[in-house]
């Protein structure tokens, strides 16, 4: 099929979306609401013109003879008005927002040069008495959910793009109320109680769903000379940490930057992974039962607990690598180095959000890649001048292959090789559901089952950063 985009000929397959063709061909179309798999076409930012008619490019399939224009006065007008409408509905507290400079709405407004606002803001804090009067029946209900350890939500900053609704593997979110009063929320606005995979946090374009942590407290501890801050670096975060700060071009550079932000020691979490895999292998060897489930994915544990409790006993319970390492750090290591364990602050930098829920006492904080980015930005250091550095030698990784465990199927492969048993690995809730379904109907029989909630494993974890442009 042949179509024209901006007066140039392009080839397209039947059923392809206009947006995909443009993206493939290097034509930039801004968008706010689409996720990789679901295109709703509700934000009307990705508009293009086809023979004079405006349409959303993200969910319109190509037809023969289409003549698409991606930039025109009409398109710019549509984008401007709709963005302005969204802005007026947004709280606009940019300076104090967790997502400042990493907010897609803010970026779009800047990119589309939104300067004048015709609409009177709806959720902004108003001071003048007259203005408040004007807003009387104008302020919609704001729902704030701080009921868990990992994710904080506020509808004040929500632009109702529906990404979280579409991305959530267990369908926790939906629209509540209707028309202008619409808010994204859980049924009956109950506090969020899910498997905390964090994909919603990762995909939220604004600061409506964010990581929960007291960053100010963490920064204080980093600056405190009496405290020894130790960073545990999850190998998975190296995949995306550059999206958060482009200066982080290598592992060594990251370690250097971490030391500059106030971490006295930076250790490779690979050591803890080795320990975890060793313990798992031992347990698999001793255990005579079949269909043992690996416990390294915290969200998977929660998923089994909440949705399939009949398999609770199948899980071979081994602590997280973070916990295993922190235990040694606060025990043997502190003794050897003659430090009071209470002065050690272990901060795990992870690609996982649910580790915050499953956190044990020895790990003081779990922060995500996004939170690391915020700490670095808040510290305001000149990243370019920072020299490269290396992991502390006290916890050296014997075999770099253990790091494959961050990928789906990695951990089970390593264990299966050592113990010479069969295994099944599933990633993503859809696959996991299928395996569990087969299991309950006795259609499968294997030694170990690995489940990872995030598709692809930790490299695609909910705590990872996302490329914005």
């Amino acid at each position, binding site marked *: 099929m042949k179509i024209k985009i901006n007066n140039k000929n392009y080839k397209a397959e039947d059923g392809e979306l206009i947006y995909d063709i443009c993206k493939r061909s290097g034509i930039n179309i801004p968008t706010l609401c689409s996720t990789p798999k679901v295109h709703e076409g*509700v934000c009307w930012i990705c508009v293009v013109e086809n023979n004079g008619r405006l349409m959303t490019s993200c969910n319109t*399939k190509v037809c023969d003879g289409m003549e698409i224009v991606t930039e025109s006065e009409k398109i710019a007008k549509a984008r401007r008005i*709709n963005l302005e*409408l969204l802005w007026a509905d947004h709280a606009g507290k940019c300076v104090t927002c967790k997502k400042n400079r990493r907010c897609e709405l803010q970026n779009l407004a800047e990119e589309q040069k939104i300067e004048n606002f015709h*609409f009177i803001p709806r959720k902004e804090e108003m001071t003048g008495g007259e203005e408040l009067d004007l807003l009387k029946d104008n302020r919609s209900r704001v729902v704030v959910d701080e009921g868990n350890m990992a994710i904080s939500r506020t509808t004040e900053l929500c632009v109702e793009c529906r990404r979280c609704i579409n991305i959530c593997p267990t369908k926790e979110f939906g*629209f509540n109320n209707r*028309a202008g009063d619409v808010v994204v929320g859980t049924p009956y606005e109950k506090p969020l109680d899910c498997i905390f995979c964090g994909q919603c946090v990762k995909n939220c374009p604004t600061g409506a769903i964010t990581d929960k942590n007291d960053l100010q407290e963490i920064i204080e501890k980093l600056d405190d000379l009496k405290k020894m801050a130790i960073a545990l670096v999850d190998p998975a975060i190296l995949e995306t940490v550059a999206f958060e700060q482009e200066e982080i071009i290598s592992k060594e550079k990251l370690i250097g930057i971490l030391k500059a932000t106030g971490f006295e020691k930076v250790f490779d979490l690979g050591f803890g992974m080795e320990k975890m895999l060793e313990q798992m292998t031992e347990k698999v060897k001793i255990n005579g039962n079949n269909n043992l489930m690996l416990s390294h994915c915290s969200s998977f544990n929660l998923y089994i607990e909440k949705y399939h409790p009949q398999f609770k006993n199948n899980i071979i319970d081994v602590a997280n690598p973070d916990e295993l390492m922190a235990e040694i750090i606060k025990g043997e290591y502190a003794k050897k180095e003659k430090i009071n364990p209470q002065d050690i602050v272990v901060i795990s930098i992870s690609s996982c959000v649910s580790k915050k829920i499953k956190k044990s006492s020895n790990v003081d904080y779990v922060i995500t890649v996004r939170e690391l980015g915020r700490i670095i930005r808040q510290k305001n250091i000149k990243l370019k001048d920072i020299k490269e550095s290396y992991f502390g030698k006290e916890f050296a990784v014997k075999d770099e292959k253990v790091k494959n465990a961050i990928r789906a199927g990695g951990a089970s492969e390593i264990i299966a090789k050592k113990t010479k048993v069969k295994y099944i690995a599933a990633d993503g809730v859809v696959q996991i559901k299928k395996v569990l379904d087969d299991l309950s109907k006795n259609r499968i029989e294997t030694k170990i089952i690995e489940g990872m909630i995030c598709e692809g494993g930790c490299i695609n974890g909910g705590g990872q950063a996302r490329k914005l442009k």
Partner: protein
Amino acid sequence: MKKEIKIITKNWGKINPKNIDEYIAAGGYQALFKFVKEMSPESALGEIKTSGLCGRGGAGFPAGQKLECVAQEKSKEKYFICNLDESEPGTYKDRAIVDNDPHMLLEGIVIASLIVGAKKAFIYINGNYRKQIEILERAVEQARKNVFIGQEILHSKYALDIEIFAGAGAYICGEETALINSIEGKRGEPRMRPPFPTQCGLFGQPTAVNNAETIANIPWIIESGGAAYAKIGSKKSPGTKLFIVNGSAKNPGVVELPLGIKLNDLLEKHAGGIQKGKEFWFAQIGGSSGRLALEKDLSMKLEYDREAKIPLGSGAILVVDKTADIHELLLSWTSFFRRESCGKCVPCREGTFRLWEIAKRLKDGEISERDVAAINDILWTLNNTTFCPLGKFAATAFSDAISNFQKEIYKLSR
């Protein structure tokens, strides 16, 4: 004056709607007999196509074409849905049909369902119509007892079950894809088209969704033939239509008249003209989502025509006289749409809200220059960029009012 043809209202006031025997005695279910005994689905479909019947819900899409699309689908499961989610302000024609002659509607539903090959039909009724739900439930029960519905309809091979599904009264659920979502148990939001419901509708199966008034025409067409129907009314859209006259007319209410009648004639001859001592200002054609007809448009023909300047819509006509407060009207329109938008897409969710806000300020006389600029922007974006037609509807009357009565609205005369 020649005798007027009544199709839908022929039994109104003459029979007891709660009693199926009275409907049968008045010649009811004869069309179903004829269909089952003498006709095939194909020939019946042919009659409907010849009749030129078009959708009475507002869009005016040819009914025969829609039924044909579903009939041609090869799927085993098919559905037929009667759209009775009447929630356009000032429109109560479908309610009147159920109130006066529910069995005519049922007969139409049975015939149309059998034509497309559906084994299950739904009546999606506005949940606020409590009394009408009761009437329909009783009617379905009676029809089932008389084997007009069930496993072997009139002891033939045809089978059909009818389920009454009460919605929650949302305006958007009158849009067919939102209606389908609602029956499936999802949130009442429009779906992306294509695929059209005729290919992939309720539970992923081919589905025909027709307005109740359209369906009520079908028994007459089957009985008297499509050609006879095509002779009634205008050439572009044959047949009769229920017009609902509201506002400052002397005799407001539902009246059945052939399509193609001039607005002037309808108001003067059938609605008794304007109330005494009042002066005609404008009329809104087709409910809250309709355009405004001024004095110069009074000679317009009321018919379904794609090129018409003022579309007929649902057939509701609101007559406004010069004592009316235009600001109250603006507020009434905008508050309706700001309440009834589903909230899915940005332009409609935010736009209808802002428009309502501005209408409120207009009424209080607090309009600022920033609002005047905003009005044009919002109307433009509602008109051009919304997901479903509701956004467009929300802008129609408002834009007409702004362009025609600028002086009154901005109070420039002072």
